[in-house]
Structure formats: C-alpha cells, structure tokens
C-alpha cells in the first residue's frame, strides 16, 4: 500500500513539473516530401528522439507536434522504402519545417540490402533491384527471387521452381503475396508457387526464422511479393512487358493499366493480365519431350483513399499447364536405375521442337481475393484489417491413361487436390512513445483440403489456426532494436478413407516464435544487423500423413502422426557498407533445429510394381550454417566488377550425416561496362557474367539416389538499354544465357537423373512505360 502511495506521489510530482513548464507550448509542423520528385510522402513517422513526442504524418505527408519545450532536438523521420533521416532542430518558437526524404524504390542501381529502410528492421531482409526484376521477367517466380544473393531454387525440370532460403524450402519457406500467406500445396518438391510474377513489382526475402509478423513455421525465411503503390495522380498510366526466349521459343507478355479518374480523385485502380507459352526445352544435344509450359493470368487492384482511411480490393487468377518431361516419368526402381545409368534420355523422350503439352502434366489454378482496410487515428495509431480467400487447384495427369475403359474415357487427373482457405488479419500500430513503436496483430485462418482423385497421397483435412503477435521497435540515433513475439495455435482435423471406413483424427499444435534483433550504423558507411530468433514449426500435413508412392522419384513416402514440432534457434547477421571504393555485403547465419522433420531412407519395399526405396518422416536434430558474400567495385571509370559467393553446410546431428538437397558452393562474377551517353537519361551497358557451381561434396551415399553431378561453369552476356522518348520509357535487354552451350546437370534439379539442363538461350526483353 505504502509503495503505491509513494509511486503516486512521484507520478504527481512529475506531472506537476511538466505542468509547471509554462513555455512548453511550441509547435513543430510541416510536410514530409520525397526528395526526388517532390511528391508528398504519406504516413511517414516523425519522432523527436529521447522524448515522448512522435506522430505519423497524414495522407498528404503533413505532420504536427504540439506542446514542445524550447531546446535542441533530434528529429527522426522514417518512411517505407526510405533511409530514415535524423535532423537537428533548435526550437525557440513555433516552427514550420518541411522534411525531405530520399525515396529509393525507383532507383535502378541500388544495392540490394534495404532492411534498414523499411518496416522489417529486426531481421535480415533483402530486396531484388528493379533491374533484376526486369531481367528475370517471364521466368517462374522462384527463379526471379533467386537473384537475391544466397537464395537458390529447387527445380523439377526447367519450369517448376521453388525458392530455397538458407537451405530451406517447402513448408519452411512462406510466401506472402500481396500481404497474404500464399496457400497452395506447398509441401511438395514439385509444387511451385502459383503466382504471376508480372502482377507484382517488389520482391524481397527475409532470411531466417525471425519474421514474427508473417506467420509461424517459416523457419527458413519469408518471401514478400508486393505490388507497386497505386497511382496518386489523375490520368492513365500503362506498362507493357514482353519477353522472348530462343531455347524453348518462349513468349511471355503482360499489360498493365492503372490510373485515377479526375471525377473520382479518391479512387485508384489497376488491371493487369499476362500470357505465356513455351515449348520443349532444348539441352545442348537434344530436346526434352513434353517440357512445354503455358500460363494465363490476370489481376486487378482498386484503392480508395479518404481523409483518414484507405481501402483496397485485390483479385488475381493464375492458370497454368506445365508439361513434365516424359523421360522423367518412371515406373519403379529398375526404371530409375536404368535412367541413371544412361547418359541421355531414351530416343522416345527426345523429340524435335513442339509446343504440345501431353501427359504427364500438371494443371494449376490459383485464385486470390482480398479486401483490406486501413484506418489512421489521431491518437491511437493506425489499424489494418484484411480478409482474403484463396482457391488452389492442383491436378496431376500421369503418363499413361488408366486401363479401365470407363476411366480411360474420362481422361481425369490421377492426382487432384483442391484447397480453399480464408485468412483474416488485424494489425494495430500504436503511436510512437519514447522512440518506441509498438504493434499488435492477430491472424485467423481456415484451410480445407479436398482430394478429388483415387490417389490420395495426403488425406482430406481442415486446418484452423489463430495467432497473436506483438512487435516493438526502439529507435536510437544510430540504429534500432526490435523485439517480436508470436503465439500460434493450430488444429488439424484429418479425414482418412481406409478399408475399415472413415477415420477422423484431430491434432492440436501450439507454436511460439520470438525474435530480438536490430541494426546499428557504424560510422558513415557501415551498417551492422543481427537477430536472434527462436521458432517452432508444427509438422505439416504431408509429414504427418503422406502415404504411398511419390511419382517421379519412384519412392514410397510414409508420414508419422507421432512427429514432434520443430524447434529452431537461429542467429542471423549482416554487415554492409563501403570500404574505400568497395561496396560490401556479408551475411552469415547459424540455425540449430531440434526435432527437424526429415525424410529418412528406410531401405527397399517390394511391391507388384517392382521395388521402391522407402522413406519415413522422422524427427532428427539438424544444424545449418551458411554465409553469403557480395561485393561491387568500380574498377576503372565506366567499368565495374560485381561478385558473390555462397556457402552452406547442413547436417543431420542424429545420424551424423549430411542433409540432402542443400545447394553447393557457388560463385558469381559480373563485369559491366556503362557507355557514356549524350542524353543524361539514356543508359547503355554491356555485361559479361560467369557462374561457377561446385560439386556438392557434402553428401552421404546412403541418403542419395545417385551421387551429385559434377561442378559446372556458365558464361553469359547481356546488353541493356534504357531510354525515355516523349512520354514513353523504354527498357530493352538482350541476354545470352549459357553462351557456351555447356552440358551440365545441377544437384538442385530433381530431374538431374534424367536429363541435362537447358542449353544456350537468347532472351530479348522489352518494357514500355507510358508515363
């Protein structure tokens, strides 16, 4: 009792002191403006360091701080996509001060690390430069994301790619598309994300397990796929993207229209559609039969901006048919061993060029519908609510039609799944208090998976989950620290059809995620980032329940309902800066995972179809370590040299062996020459690039189907030209990949047993912006 009275007296004393300062009536106000195009930056945060004063600017970038005492302050202004700026202010009377911020998103030659410039400060986050986005246009989304240093792909042929972050993929990497967890059949190695890369403008990757805001279980990392902001000025803008590739005679193009009508100044809109068609992939010595791909996608986005709230509506539809190389479809272990023993596919699997997609193939449909609402309060911060629905349909057609005449006439997929999911999200960002920015959030989701085929590799299930998180960020003069915690509860309701009838099983999992991290500026040129995170991942549906034959790998896979959740402890760190003329980025991480869920070989099972290697999902202990290096050096006048190197080690500590499907060491080098142009806005550059991928030597014979393929080197070159004429902006690039037509196979391609990789490929890209 006496304690609380004491506390009360102290509080009263502080209060009276504050009241006593009569002259603390000063006002600081102004507008936050983009330094480059003088446009207003809405909702920037403006804070006075080491005080309780801080506000978010309004939609027009206007801010106002009231009740200030005279004195010297340090004002920190921060905005998404900008470098936070610190300004010294001497306040003697009411002051009108406009703040200019350097906005980075449109800049082409930027270094990729952007983490210190946007909202995910407590983690190591990297963004793809706009130039790389253009250079990878028309490729599967994972191959685009792989232009981030240290991000790889796990491929099934040339058209199916999944992102691999720090050696993790599938259930351990989450993709956030337009702010929503992408819900597909993410568990399968050959299940690529069903997302149209043309529909978005910004791609970034959060490395490691620390991304508290974006859901649980993503212990490898999070991929953020975001659209560019809707236009803020009246009129119509257009963007046309087109890509042609010689190797598989691929054509892809996308058209986007966006704008604002004068009569409806609060409403912005965008519509976008894309088409893609490619034929058989050509390796240096043969074509891969049935390796074509086709895609048809469209999307739209509507945004409404009011005084203190905004609303958005987004819809996208993805449609794709992907041919599976016929030589990779095998019946059993004998077939697989025969394929491995041969240097090249059978004659019947090599054919001339064709666009035709026959069995075996995958048919995919993904639909996303999302509404989002944001409200800005004067004293309560801002609140974001969103609700989304996703449909995902995956149909896999086997090589051969069924023998039964009736089933044969139906021509239905042998394996077919549909997933319907609803996600609701709430995020509340409180006003800053003593340089501390805090947000709270909650997520609820309902996912239902239905099997529509005879083959039921996984069962029907319903997954309901709720999650809560809080993130607090404290800003210092030289950096920031962030603490994030998250709790998730997950219920899996499974329906299995067995010989003895329907069996229902219910399983509950909880998961805790926590992250402590931040960055610190070291001198003028260097930034150091580090975070420590703990994350739990409950087992996924395939790990619990998969049962049967996995086509393509000719293996039997069995889940286990007794699996424990994974518990991961990770440290990520990144150092970036400049030493003399050398730009440097160094990332490193260590992650230890207790009860790592792993597909462990169990010998051979004998069936009437022949023998198959058999695998069980098991808990082991895993240890991952890696480092990614990148540098850039202006060698001589217009010539620059960029290089990167990636190293990764992954061990199964339980059986003291190496884990499979881990990328080997790789080294990239790029020499770029920039021509002097008469017009300042024109850019012309020529580059030579070289990639060296070492053989994966960290493997165990018992874990692998066949030993990893040998090392390889690839050479390439690119000529790119950017210009603006009248009201049109042009970007043109001519790119030659695998210029020496090298015959090689990659360890990260699941078709390495069956075929060489793609040979020489000449790609032409064109992007026209109607400004």
């Amino acid at each position, binding site marked *: 009792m006496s304690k609380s009275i004491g506390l009360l007296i102290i509080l009263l004393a502080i209060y009276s002191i504050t009241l006593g300062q009569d002259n603390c009536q000063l006002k600081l106000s102004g507008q936050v403006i983009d330094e480059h195009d003088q446009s207003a930056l809405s909702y920037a945060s403006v804070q006075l360091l080491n005080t309780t004063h801080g506000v978010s600017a309004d939609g027009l970038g206007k801010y106002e701080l009231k009740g200030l005492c005279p004195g010297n302050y340090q004002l920190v202004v921060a905005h998404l996509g900008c470098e936070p700026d610190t300004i010294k202010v001497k306040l003697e009377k009411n002051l009108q001060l406009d703040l200019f911020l350097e906005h980075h998103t449109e800049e082409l030659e930027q270094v990729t690390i952007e983490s210190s410039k946007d909202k995910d400060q407590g983690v190591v986050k990297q963004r793809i430069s706009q130039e790389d986005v253009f250079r990878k246009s028309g490729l599967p989304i994972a191959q685009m994301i792989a232009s981030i240093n240290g991000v790889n792909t796990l491929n099934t042929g040339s058209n199916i790619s999944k992102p691999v972050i720090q050696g993790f993929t599938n259930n351990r990497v989450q993709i956030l598309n337009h702010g929503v967890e992408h819900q597909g059949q993410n568990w399968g190695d050959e299940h690529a994300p069903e997302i149209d890369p043309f529909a978005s403008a910004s791609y970034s990757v959060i490395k490691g397990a620390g991304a508290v805001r974006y859901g649980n279980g993503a212990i490898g990392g999070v991929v953020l796929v975001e659209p560019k902001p809707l236009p803020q000025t009246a009129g119509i803008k257009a963007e046309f993207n087109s890509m042609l590739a010689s190797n598989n005679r691929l054509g892809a193009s996308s058209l986007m229209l966006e704008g604002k009508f004068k009569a409806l100044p609060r409403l912005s809109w965008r519509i976008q559609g894309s088409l893609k068609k490619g034929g058989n992939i050509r390796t240096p010595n043969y074509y891969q039969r049935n390796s074509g791909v086709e895609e048809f996608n469209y999307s739209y986005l509507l945004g409404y901006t009011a005084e203190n709230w905004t609303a958005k509506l987004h819809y996208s539809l993805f449609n794709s048919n992907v041919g599976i190389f016929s030589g990779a479809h095998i019946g059993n272990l004998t077939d697989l061993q025969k394929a491995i023993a041969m240097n090249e596919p059978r004659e019947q699997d090599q054919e001339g060029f064709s666009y035709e997609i026959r069995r075996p193939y995958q048919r995919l*449909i993904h*639909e996303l519908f999302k509404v989002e609402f944001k409200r800005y309060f004067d004293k309560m911060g801002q609140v974001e609510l969103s609700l989304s629905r996703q449909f995902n349909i995956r149909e896999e057609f086997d090589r*051969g039609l069924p023998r039964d005449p009736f089933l044969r006439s139906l021509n239905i997929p042998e394996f077919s799944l549909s997933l319907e999911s609803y996600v609701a999200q709430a995020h509340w960002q409180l006003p800053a208090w003593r340089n501390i920015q805090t947000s709270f959030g909650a997520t609820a989701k309902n996912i239902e998976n239905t099997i529509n085929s005879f083959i039921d590799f996984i069962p029907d299930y319903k997954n309901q989950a709720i999650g809560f998180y809080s993130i607090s960020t404290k800003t210092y003069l030289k950096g920031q620290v962030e603490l994030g915690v998250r709790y998730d509860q997950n219920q899996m309701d499974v329906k299995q*059809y*067995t010989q003895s009838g329907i069996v229902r099983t219910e399983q509950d999992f909880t998961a805790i995620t926590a992250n402590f991290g931040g960055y610190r500026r070291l001198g003028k040129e260097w930034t150091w980032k580090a975070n420590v995170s703990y994350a739990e991942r409950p087992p996924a549906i395939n790990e619990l329940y998969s049962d*049967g034959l996995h086509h393509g790998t000719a293996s039997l896979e069995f889940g286990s309902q007794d699996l424990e959740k994974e518990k991961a402890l990770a440290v990520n760190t990144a150092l970036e800066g400049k030493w003399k003329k050398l730009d440097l980025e160094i990332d490193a991480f260590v992650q230890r995972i207790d009860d790592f869920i792993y597909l462990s070989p169990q010998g051979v099972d004998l069936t009437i179809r022949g023998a198959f290697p058999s695998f069980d999902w098991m808990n082991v202990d895993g240890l991952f370590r890696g480092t990614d290096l990148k540098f850039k050096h202006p060698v001589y006048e217009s010539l620059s040299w960029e290089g990167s190197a990636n190293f990764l080690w992954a061990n199964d500590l339980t059986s003291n062996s190496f884990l499979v499907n881990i990328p080997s060491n790789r080294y990239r080098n790029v020499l770029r020459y920039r021509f002097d142009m008469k017009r300042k806005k024109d850019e012309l550059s020529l580059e030579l690039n070289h990639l060296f991928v070492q053989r994966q030597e960290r493997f165990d014979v018992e874990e692998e189907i066949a030993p990893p393929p040998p090392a390889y080197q690839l050479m390439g070159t690119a000529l790119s030209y950017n210009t603006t004429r009248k009201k049109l902006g042009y970007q043109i690039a001519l790119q030659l990949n695998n210029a020496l037509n090298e015959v090689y196979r990659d360890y990260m391609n699941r078709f390495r047993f069956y075929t060489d990789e793609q040979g020489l490929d000449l790609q032409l890209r064109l992007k026209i912006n109607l400004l």
Partner: protein
Amino acid sequence: MKRFFKYAFVFALSASVFTACTDDDDDSVTPNGGTNVTPNEEEVITTLGVVTFSNQVAQDTFLFRDLDGDGGNDGVVDTLRIPADSTFNVQLYFLDESDPNDIENKTAEILAEADEHFICYEVQGGNNEITVSYNDQDANNLDLGIDTDWTTSSSANGTFRITLRHQDGGVKDGTCAPGDSDIEVDFPFVLQ
C-alpha cells in the same frame, strides 16, 4: 466517366465470381461423385498368376500377391518349380484382389490395349536358362506376351523377372526399352 467506371467495376467483380464458380465445378468432376472416393478404387493389380500348361491342360499355378498394395506388408512370391529340358505353354493372368468381395480380372483390359503393353521375360544374371517365344501379337503385329512358350535348359536355379511394360503413345516397338514398368516381379526359379 463515372458510368464507365461503374461498368468496369461490375465487370471486374463478376469476372471473379464467374471464375470462382468454374473452379467449383471442376472440383466435382470425380469418377464417382467426389467425396466417397476410397483408395481401394484406385486402379491396382495385386496379383500376377503364371500358369503352366501341358497339352492344353493346366499343370501348375505360381503367384505373386501383394493384397495390401504399396507399403504395408511385402508381396509374397512363389518359386517357379518347372521341368528342366522341356518346352511348354505358359499363360499369365492379372487380378485386383484388394477387395476380397470383388475380385477383378485385369487380363482382359491388358488384352484390349495390347498395342500399349509388352511383357518382358528375363533371367537375371544367368545364361538364358529359360527362353521365351511369343504366341500373341497386337493389331500392329508386335508381340504382347500373355500367351508364351518357355523352353528350359538342364537343371538350374536363379531369378526370372517378368515385367509388364506400359508403352502408350505409339512408342511400342517390340522391345522392352520404351515406356515404364507397371508390374515387375522377380520369381525365383528351380528347373528340375
């Protein structure tokens, strides 16, 4: 302009609703009406029978049976105990016995699609102790292999592999190489 926008908006919304409906329709295209699919209805062959004949009279039947399909218990295989130094007729049959109340004979289906199937016989690592000649051909006059004559050498033992190759899409050429294996059974054999 306002009106234009209004129509554009309605169009866009209806487009999403329309596609959503199509998706739903797709879901329901399942062979037996969607939800009551059971794994047992998957097209499986559980049993390969090898019947030897002498003067058109059945002598012995040798079986490979794996009633619970992939995984579970391994299949059970009989040893081919067949006469040495002789020639005799052999017929194969294929069954789906996964449901004991509804045993299906799959041989007719293979015969109906003879031009997509080929049965290979091969002694593993031996000296052709059993040689096989084909008595049945498909419409293109290529061998099938359900009806064959076997000629055996003097007493020996080893492993005899019988493989049903699925060779669809016009790739069948009378050899074992094209297509992939639907069935592959290694029978131990004893020539006596």
